[in-house]
């Protein structure tokens, strides 16, 4: 078990390092930030001064080493535009994003999974077909279309809800709905097929045959086994809590991480973009790690497999 955890931890660290390197390479190789920040008409001396101030005059590998060193001491650099700590700028926006993504996650879990499980247990029924059709619709409609259609209906035609901004909780309704519909569809479908797969297994037949009530079979035998694949998807959703709202925040002009990313990318504000990439990747890696460890705990077969090679 310890070996299993260590292997997973090591892989998570390597992944983070890969992301750090990726961010560095892409963002540094793609153009001269001094030119972009200062514009084409500034005198050469100020370009040189800018490069010196931000360490851009050093060779690339030296910048990389300095960058890695800084990351490990918790220094994510300063925003080239606002002259404020990049980490501070990013963390400031996290609550706004979570205000949307957390309720959306809860909606996904508490609507999607029960709907899928119910559909699986009433396979081929009218409800099953209805749920699956709705689910397919839910995840094939892109979030920007869903968002705009909801705005068209609830803000433009009915005038019930605001179409943008972050003043009251009412402003959060449309973005949260927009974000959760796709996830509900995905979870419903996934839970359904996981449940169907499980209920076809011989141990379910055995459990029914030994005289357990159907309710006990479902709760005691089917659901725990179906949980393994469902947890993968949920883990992914938890991991994308921070980054999952780029498009939706843009539609509803919500001042979260996603907006910050789009704006910073437009401004070529390297430090902020790097910081967001790192935080997003870290969130994803940690939740994947937790999912992997949960697997090992839920399903001993995977544990022995993982330490096997």
């Amino acid at each position, binding site marked *: 078990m310890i070996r299993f955890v260590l292997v997973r931890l090591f892989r998570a660290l390597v992944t983070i390092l890969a992301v750090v390197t990726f961010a560095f390479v892409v963002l540094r190789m793609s153009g001269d930030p001094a030119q972009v920040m200062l514009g084409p008409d500034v005198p050469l001396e100020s370009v040189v001064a800018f490069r010196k101030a931000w360490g851009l005059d050093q060779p690339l590998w030296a910048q990389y080493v300095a960058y890695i060193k800084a990351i490990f001491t918790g220094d994510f650099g300063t925003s080239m535009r606002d002259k404020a700590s990049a980490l501070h700028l990013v963390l400031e926006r996290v609550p706004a994003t979570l205000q949307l993504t957390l309720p959306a996650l809860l909606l996904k879990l508490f609507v999607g999974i029960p709907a899928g499980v119910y559909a699986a247990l009433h396979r081929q029924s009218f409800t099953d077909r209805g749920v699956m059709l709705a689910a397919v619709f839910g995840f094939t409609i892109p979030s920007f*279309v869903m968002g*705009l259609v909801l705005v068209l209906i609830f803000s433009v035609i009915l005038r019930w809800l605001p179409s943008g901004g972050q003043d009251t909780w009412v402003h959060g309704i449309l973005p949260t709905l927009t974000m959760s519909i796709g996830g509900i569809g995905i979870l419903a479908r996934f839970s359904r097929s996981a449940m169907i797969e499980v209920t076809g297994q011989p141990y379910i037949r055995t459990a029914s045959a030994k005289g357990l009530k159907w309710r006990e079979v479902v709760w005691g035998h089917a659901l725990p086994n179906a949980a393994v694949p469902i947890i993968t998807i949920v883990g992914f959703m938890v991991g994308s809590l921070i980054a999952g709202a780029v498009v939706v925040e843009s539609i509803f002009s919500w001042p979260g991480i996603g907006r910050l990313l789009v704006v910073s990318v437009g401004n070529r504000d390297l430090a902020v973009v790097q910081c967001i990439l790192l935080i997003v990747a870290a969130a*994803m890696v940690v939740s994947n790690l937790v999912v992997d460890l949960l697997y090992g705990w839920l399903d001993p077969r995977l544990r022995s497999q993982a330490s096997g090679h």
Partner: protein
Amino acid sequence: MAAIDLSEPTSAAPKSGFFAVLRRNVPLTVGLGLFWLAAMIIVAAFADQLRPYNITAMDLSSRLSAPGGLKHLLGTDELGRDVLSRLIQSIRISLVIAFGATLLSAFFGTLLGFLAAQFRGTVEHLVLVLADFQAALPFLIMSLAVLAFFGSSMLLLVCLMGFYGWERYARIARGLAIAAGAQGYAAAVVQLGATPARVYLRHILPNVASTLIVSMTLTFPEIILMESGLSFLGLGVQPPETSLGNMVGFGREYLTRAPWIMLAPAIVIMLTTLSISLVGDWLRDKLDPTIR
């Protein structure tokens, strides 16, 4: 995982005739999906012939005219450009990008998966680390960073989208190839002296192809959504060229006055991804014995 299906398929006396066979084997929703996809492919292939106007031709006298008119069937946009013509061109661009990207990602993903299965050890770890990396960085975020800093071009967009989902093919191909290696047939051809390339391409690939094709039907609509999302944010396909997401993005400005500019491409995106999902599910049931 080997589930043994004890129930023999009952076969009724089959009726002959193409449509009878079709009706018996293809559910209505899947049939409609196939029909829509065929229509989309025809539209994409003959876009130049089907387009009533040039996509940049402006008709300033009839700006923002509503759909239904004889002159502009789906109305016009803020510059008086014909929405139908732009829609047809958008379908072509979006499908070309999605198709190219799906093939790219399936090819490289499968290749890497097979390499991992063949060489194991360091190569396998490297592939898995790359897959972890891809899974750790949400694709939209990665694309945003790359596109914004390198600028957007059609080629870069296809290549970038080609990275989407490769790790899934890699994982599937690796898993299936390892499993196949343990089975008699692969070992037999190795014993007969076949080269690894021959074993993988002629023997293992045909046996795992159905699962890979099903994965392609899953990634294809996701790539369409990803490309239209990027174009919607203004970082995908650049004007004067147009794509479905791009049209939705610009139509957003006229949501209150001219919703048709945004609704027309939105409906096409929806129906297309919906059709592929329905057809893909049906294919999976038909082709993939491991899922049943």
